[in-house]
């Protein structure tokens, strides 16, 4: 299961559509398990595509929607009526909408439509299942449930799946591998751990979550901020002035004497057992720090911060 991750306009959906055969590349080829599919029309690519807004056939019942791909086959390859009915029943069980065969899409909720769209795509037993922002139009709770459910289905069927998302959490939670795109370029492909621990570029790093940027100097093995050494490690080949990106949880409140930087608390708020504190540095820039939900940080209080890690780029 591969997640295509990137900011809007980075070309995720275009790439997905090229794989499906709905858009055409200027250069390059599309390979399915070694077979060149670049010249194949959509109909013959055997992909299952789930559209962002589901694109269900409004005038057909749920069962007819799911059976559509099977009914569309040539007579010689089409399964019998009973067989189709059985397959539709199995898929409805899979998506846990068994009693819904005779409903119409307009009578379903967003999450239910999403699942019907998935069942419709799975019915043709595609070589690749392509999902375009599968949870984009759903509210947060439904989204979480569906995410877990999609992963379950994937684990059960082993279906090769590529999905597009702009939500880092979604990509990191669902995928076996993540591909990060930016401005039409593939920045990095790797497991969720790899892209988080060893981001290939500052773009990848910034897109995967909040970070604070520092000007640093690399001297040999050491990465200095304001003349003080930090535990961050510079990649090979980076010498002299560099940029250090620090995640909010890699900053720690310490006594101003041993701090890399100091400032005053501007605001703080609690969320899910953690505190996010905005600290204003003397030059006016804001730094966001994440700390456990312990001491209260009142606005105006002077604090010192130590850098406990970070990622260095030239």
């Amino acid at each position: 299961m591969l997640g295509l991750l990137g900011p809007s306009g980075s070309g995720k959906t275009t790439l997905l559509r090229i794989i499906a055969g709905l858009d055409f590349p200027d250069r390059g080829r599309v390979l399915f398990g070694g077979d060149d599919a670049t010249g194949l029309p959509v109909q013959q690519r055997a992909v299952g595509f789930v559209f962002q807004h589901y694109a269900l056939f409004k005038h057909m019942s749920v069962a007819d929607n799911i059976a559509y791909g099977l009914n569309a086959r040539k007579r010689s390859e089409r399964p019998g009526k009973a067989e189709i009915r059985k397959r539709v029943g199995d898929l409805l069980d899979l998506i846990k909408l068994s009693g819904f065969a005779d409903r119409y899409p307009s009578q379903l909720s967003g999450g239910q439509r999403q699942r019907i769209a998935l069942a419709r795509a799975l019915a043709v037993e595609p070589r690749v299942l392509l999902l375009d922002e599968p949870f984009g139009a759903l509210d947060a709770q439904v989204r979480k449930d569906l995410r877990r459910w999609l992963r379950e289905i994937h684990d059960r069927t082993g279906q090769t799946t590529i999905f597009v998302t702009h939500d880092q959490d979604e990509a990191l939670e669902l995928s076996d591998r993540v591909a990060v795109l930016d401005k039409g370029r593939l920045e990095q492909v790797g497991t969720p751990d790899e892209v988080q621990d060893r981001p290939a570029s500052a773009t990848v790093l910034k897109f995967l979550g909040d970070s604070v940027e520092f000007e640093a100097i690399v001297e040999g093995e050491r990465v200095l901020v304001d003349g003080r050494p930090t535990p961050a490690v510079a990649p090979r080949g980076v010498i002299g002035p560099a940029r250090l990106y620090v995640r909010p949880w890699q900053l720690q409140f310490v006594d101003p004497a041993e701090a890399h930087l100091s400032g005053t608390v501007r605001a703080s708020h609690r969320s899910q057992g953690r505190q996010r504190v905005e600290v204003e540095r003397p030059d006016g820039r804001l730094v966001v720090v994440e700390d456990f939900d312990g001491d209260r940080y009142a606005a105006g209080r002077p604090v010192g911060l130590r850098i406990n890690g970070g990622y260095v780029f030239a």
Partner: protein
Amino acid sequence: MVATPPRRFHFRRPSVIPGFGLTFGYALTCLSLVVLLPLAALVARASGLGLSGIWDVARDPRVASALRLSFGVSLLAALTASVFGFVVAWVLTRYDFPGRRIVDAAVDLPFALPTAVAGIALASLYAPNGLVGAQLAKVGIQAAYTPIGIFIAMVFIGLPFAVRTVQPLIAEIDKEVEEASATLGAKRLLTLTRVVLPPLIPAVLTGFALAFARGVGEYGSIIFIAGNLPFVSEIAPLLIVIKLSEFDYAGAAAIATIMLGISFLTLLVINLIQAWSRRRFGYV
């Protein structure tokens, strides 16, 4: 299906827009003055003859053949206009070509043109010595002064209705739905017949009904091209005018009432089919 609790009928539902009483009253008044009152007067006039009198008028061979001609050709013309109009609407919304906007505007011309002008233009084109008529004459078809001429005029008059009713719906078709059909392996023809067309049927029916109604009522453009031979190419509206000029007001009213009845029944049937297909295709 989940049973919805029976809802009590509310004459007026709360709404953010004020003025229900005023608009409802105004609408009813206008409708009564402009539509219902004249129709009532017509029926009242014809009822002077009594049911048997109206039946006698309907059985008059000349009247019967005119009615058959009017409704038969209208149906055919509306059918043709629907198919043709659908294609025109499709091309106009789906494809971009130089002059598209001009063609789009030209579709409305039959609405705006005085019908007599259209009739004369069509007559001169399709007359045996006209531009098109001469070609048709070579293959042995005489268009002008026959029911074929009436048919052509009715298609011309009905076309804008057929185009304008389906056009907005074609524009609204979600391209993704077609793509979904393609990814599921459906050939283009199947996508068209199973996915694209069914939701458009109600609109096509509306266009058909309007074109039909217009065809039945059309007078100006037809009398020039029809030749108006009794029993061959004489339409019912013309017969009404003839009766009027003979001061046979009751006879004219009787034919009009018969036309009204048939039209009403036809439109009712079309509306029922439409309501059925709307339900069938899951529109709320």
